[in-house]
């Protein structure tokens, strides 16, 4: 005689809520939650762009994904767009990496100079010749964990455009194209 024949079938509502095998359902749920938390914490972080400092590549209101994992695996290179944390992750800056650790950087009449050479920037539409940085006219030597990050919209006045040197610990990840 089949021993399972003695057991009455589980009520339909229990099957709907916890499945035929609750233990398997619980494990599936746990794994799904864990993977989702890990994915949204370290692999893909959703962001919404606000403001015009990264125009024209990134427009106000656009939704993008940032990957901390990619930044860790591939490293951060010149031209990458990265998100920079403030006191947390709710509000972050989106900027393009222009200068890398150990480089001498300067902005002179709107042109970016890296180790004395002018940087080609195809992603920029217009640039204002009024941009000069550092304001004392000298080059800025980036430290071992420092990156110069600037927005793409260089047509806007320099004193309305937030840019500067970001520590590596502040860079959450790369923005996926």
């Amino acid at each position, binding site marked *: 005689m089949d021993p399972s024949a003695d057991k009455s079938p589980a009520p339909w509502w229990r099957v709907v809520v916890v499945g035929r095998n609750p233990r398997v359902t619980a494990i599936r749920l746990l794994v799904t939650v864990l993977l989702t938390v890990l994915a949204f914490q370290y692999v893909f972080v959703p962001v919404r762009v606000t403001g015009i400092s990264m125009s024209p590549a990134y427009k106000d209101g656009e939704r993008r994904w940032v990957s901390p994992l990619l930044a860790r695996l591939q490293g951060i290179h010149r031209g990458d767009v990265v998100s920079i944390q*403030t006191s*947390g*992750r709710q509000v972050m800056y989106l900027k393009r990496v222009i200068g890398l650790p150990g480089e001498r950087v300067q902005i002179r009449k709107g042109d970016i100079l890296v180790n004395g050479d002018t940087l080609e920037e195809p992603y920029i539409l217009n640039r204002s010749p009024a941009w000069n940085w550092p304001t004392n006219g000298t080059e800025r030597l980036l430290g071992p964990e*420092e990156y110069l*990050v600037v927005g793409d919209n260089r047509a806007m006045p320099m*004193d309305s455009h*937030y840019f*500067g040197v*970001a520590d590596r610990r502040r860079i959450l990840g790369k923005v996926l194209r």
Partner: protein
Amino acid sequence: MKALSWGFAGGLLLCLGVWKREALFPSETTKVRNALVQLASDASFGPSEGNIGAVRRVAAVADRFAPDASIEVDILGSGNFQLTGRDEVQQRLMAARRFVRKLVLQFHDIVVDLGADETTATVHLTATADAVGEGRYQGGFDALEFELALRKVEGRWRIERLRTIPTLKQ
């Protein structure tokens, strides 16, 4: 199955207990956070607010500061502000209200570091402001990082020092 149901119910009860305990008997960290959220709410106003409402609101904001509070704020495109004392905060806020018709101030990512004696706290937060006004008050700001020092005096958390922190170095 029975063990799983009991486990689930127990977990739910535990979550409910922790949440209720925090709601009924908030920790000092939660009190600091709540005080700052209330400050942001008090500082925000709409275009239809009258003079009496404005005076009341400014007084409520100023009351969150210690009598000898020191404030140092650097806003991109608007310049640097330095204020000392609650009275000056109140005067400057009242003066600024004449040029601002609407303000929505929000605090994000409030990180509270409570002192060992639980009467002092250091807070890091990011503020965003959407303002409709004249001149340098138009537009507000996208994201500003602040560091605040608070002290609990007579049961209320008050700001002793407030200054902007540069996210990006120059």
